[in-house]
């Protein structure tokens, strides 16, 4: 029996085939395939261990890994070859962001020890807060590729702390500092003038000074480890292993695609609002034949001012992730995995901004919509692949101001990315509380956040009767009560406050999201008097007094769910509730024991258990 790779199906090659195609033995190929990934994970740990920004050290909102070289004889062109586990959207976009920066800079200009940084979103990026960096990997004088990173900078200057300024950032000139590629390190020496761009123009001078050097340390780690493997196995073996690694993922994706019925599958959804408060239609058509697939966003709304548009590179990378997430099995993310995929992103649509549109906020909106639409469309192809709609915005809420708890007021910027529920699917219920697949970040502990920022978290609970019903139900909404202890300027972005999540194959939709304000509520909460009726910040409200209203109430007004520069007072209580996720399949077919368990866990009330599931619990 021939020796084969560890995987099954079309991804598998015999040892003889590996030797013949790549010029290396199977064992070396597998050792190096895993070594590439291990290297990226080590680079990730370096950032987490040394970063000062909570976005990097606590949350892990960055992507880091390796690119291969340009080598036409091997069909290599600075392809993404290995990535760490955190923030896939950040890393996957390197297939464009890092490549375009290298091409812009000129590959032959790099010298050992150089680090080039950039954040020009229109050059294959996402938004100006995502700082790209590349460091060349030389081996015996030959360029073997790059160590690359994208790190989400907590603040990049501009009018809004955190940079997320939906509605306020009319165009790209209002987003903060913009950097075409430039030296951060030249021949291993830190370039002070570049660091001063951050110390002078962002609100996080100390964090920036540290974390810029952390980036270099992490990239240098990757450069050193690749050098080690190239020394040990030889340059040709290393390059052969890159080809092998890319082809491996490509074969695995093509194998998975071949099992999806050929056809044309469509999905549509809405963003809650544009800058004028009007809904934005988003559409996706998936054409799938054999092992090829085309994902087309034609028919979607035009780009909108004030942050209601995304970069094409964000859209495409998110579509790649949507496909990768709905395919069965786990396929290593690298450029090879995306070879079978074509994406159509019409210029001037919300999925392909044209300069000078602002994309800082839209980065999150449409990144998520892209992934969700792809999953919704492919759900039509095969019930076994279908999944109810998840929360599909990386919702955020931020507070910024002066922290005076220590006597000397110091500026602070708190930014929370909301996690949420996933839809039910063929195999089971949706996750209750997890991060979107584009993010894959961590949520910091409440204790850390209360220590680091002048905020109190009064509550974080699942909300009864918000999970989309189904044979396999979606996850429920989560509600947090947050009280700033100082006057704060806030930004919020939250989806599905107007259009609830959808179920699949008879499953129901989830509950809607919303943000509400209990003015001065902290004092009452501390006295255990309960909170008074809130005022709606985002969601449906009674225009007479701002109190919560149902979407179907006559005269109910929708208050936009994305806004920047909103002021909350010390002692206010902000109620931030995400959506519930969609269910899968007919609720009447749900296991009665599962319904009982949901009632016991307060996911479903007894009354709704009877109405939706036909469960009479006595």
């Amino acid at each position: 029996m021939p020796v084969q790779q560890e995987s099954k199906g079309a991804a598998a090659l015999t040892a003889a085939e590996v030797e013949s195609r790549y010029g290396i033995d199977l064992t070396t190929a597998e050792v190096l395939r895993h070594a590439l990934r291990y290297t990226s994970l080590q680079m990730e740990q370096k950032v987490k261990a040394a970063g000062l920004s909570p976005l990097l050290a606590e949350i892990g909102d960055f992507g880091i890994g390796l690119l291969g070289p340009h080598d036409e004889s091997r069909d290599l062109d600075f392809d993404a070859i290995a990535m760490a586990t955190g923030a896939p959207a950040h890393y996957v976009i390197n297939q464009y962001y890092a490549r375009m920066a290298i091409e812009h800079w000129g590959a032959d200009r790099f010298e050992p020890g150089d680090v080039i940084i950039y954040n020009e979103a229109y050059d294959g990026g996402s938004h100006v807060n995502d700082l790209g960096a590349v460091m060349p990997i030389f081996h015996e004088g030959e360029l073997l590729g790059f160590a690359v990173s994208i790190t989400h900078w907590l603040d990049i200057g501009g009018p809004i702390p955190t940079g997320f300024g939906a509605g306020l950032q009319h165009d790209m000139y209002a987003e903060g500092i913009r950097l075409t590629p430039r030296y951060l390190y030249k021949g291993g020496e830190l370039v002070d003038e570049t660091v001063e761009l951050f110390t002078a123009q962002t609100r996080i001078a100390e964090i920036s000074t540290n974390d810029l050097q952390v980036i270099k340390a992490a990239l240098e780690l990757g450069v050193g480890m690749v050098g080690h493997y190239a020394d040990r196995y030889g340059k040709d073996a290393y390059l052969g292993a890159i080809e092998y690694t890319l082809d491996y993922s490509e074969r695995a994706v093509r194998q998975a695609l071949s099992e999806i019925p050929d056809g044309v599958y469509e999905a549509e959804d809405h963003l809650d609002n544009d800058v004028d408060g009007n809904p934005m239609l988003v559409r996706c058509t998936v054409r799938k034949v054999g092992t090829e697939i085309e994902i087309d966003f034609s028919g979607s709304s035009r780009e909108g001012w004030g942050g209601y548009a995304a970069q094409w590179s964000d859209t495409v990378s998110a579509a790649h992730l949507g496909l990768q997430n709905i395919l069965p099995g786990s396929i290593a993310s690298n450029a090879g995995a995306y070879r079978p995929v074509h994406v159509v992103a019409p210029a001037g649509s919300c999925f392909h901004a044209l300069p000078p549109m602002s994309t800082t906020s839209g980065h999150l909106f449409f990144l998520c919509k892209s992934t969700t639409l792809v999953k919704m469309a492919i759900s039509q192809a095969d019930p076994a692949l279908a999944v109810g709609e998840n929360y599909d915005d990386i919702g955020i809420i931020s507070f910024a101001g002066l922290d005076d708890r220590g006597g000397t007021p110091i500026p602070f910027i708190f930014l929370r990315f909301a996690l949420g529920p996933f839809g039910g699917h063929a195999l089971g219920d949706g996750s209750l509380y997890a991060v979107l697949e584009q993010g894959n970040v961590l949520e910091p502990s409440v204790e850390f956040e209360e220590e680091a920022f002048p905020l109190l978290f009064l509550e974080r609970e699942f909300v009864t009767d918000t999970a989309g019903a189904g044979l396999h139900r979606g996850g429920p909404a989560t509600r947090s009560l947050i009280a700033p202890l100082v006057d704060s300027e806030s930004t919020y972005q939250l989806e599905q406050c107007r259009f609830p999540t959808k179920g699949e194959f008879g499953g129901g939709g989830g509950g809607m999201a919303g943000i509400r304000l209990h003015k001065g509520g902290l004092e009452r909460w501390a006295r255990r008097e309960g909170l008074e009726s809130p005022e709606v910040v985002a969601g449906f409200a009674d225009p007479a007094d701002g109190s919560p209203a149902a979407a179907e109430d006559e005269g109910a007004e929708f208050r936009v769910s994305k806004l920047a520069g909103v002021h909350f007072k010390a002692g206010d209580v902000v109620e931030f509730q995400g959506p519930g996720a969609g269910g899968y399949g007919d609720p009447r077919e749900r296991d009665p024991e599962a319904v009982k368990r949901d009632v016991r866990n307060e996911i479903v009330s007894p009354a709704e258990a009877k109405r939706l599931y036909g469960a009479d619990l006595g």
Partner: protein
Amino acid sequence: MLFPQPTEMFIDEPLEAVDGECPRCGEATVFRYTLVDYRGWLRVTKCRSCLDVQDSERIRPPAQGA
């Protein structure tokens, strides 16, 4: 500053019909349009029925200072 915004509310990728049928599946019309693959932008001539690509040309921006 004032900049133009598309006047259409919904945006479609412009498809340019190309003479000749698809050599693979015989579909009557193939189209020329732009799309993105794993390395960036392409101008393709492609059949939207069987996804056969008859022609593709990579679109690259010039290097800095070029």
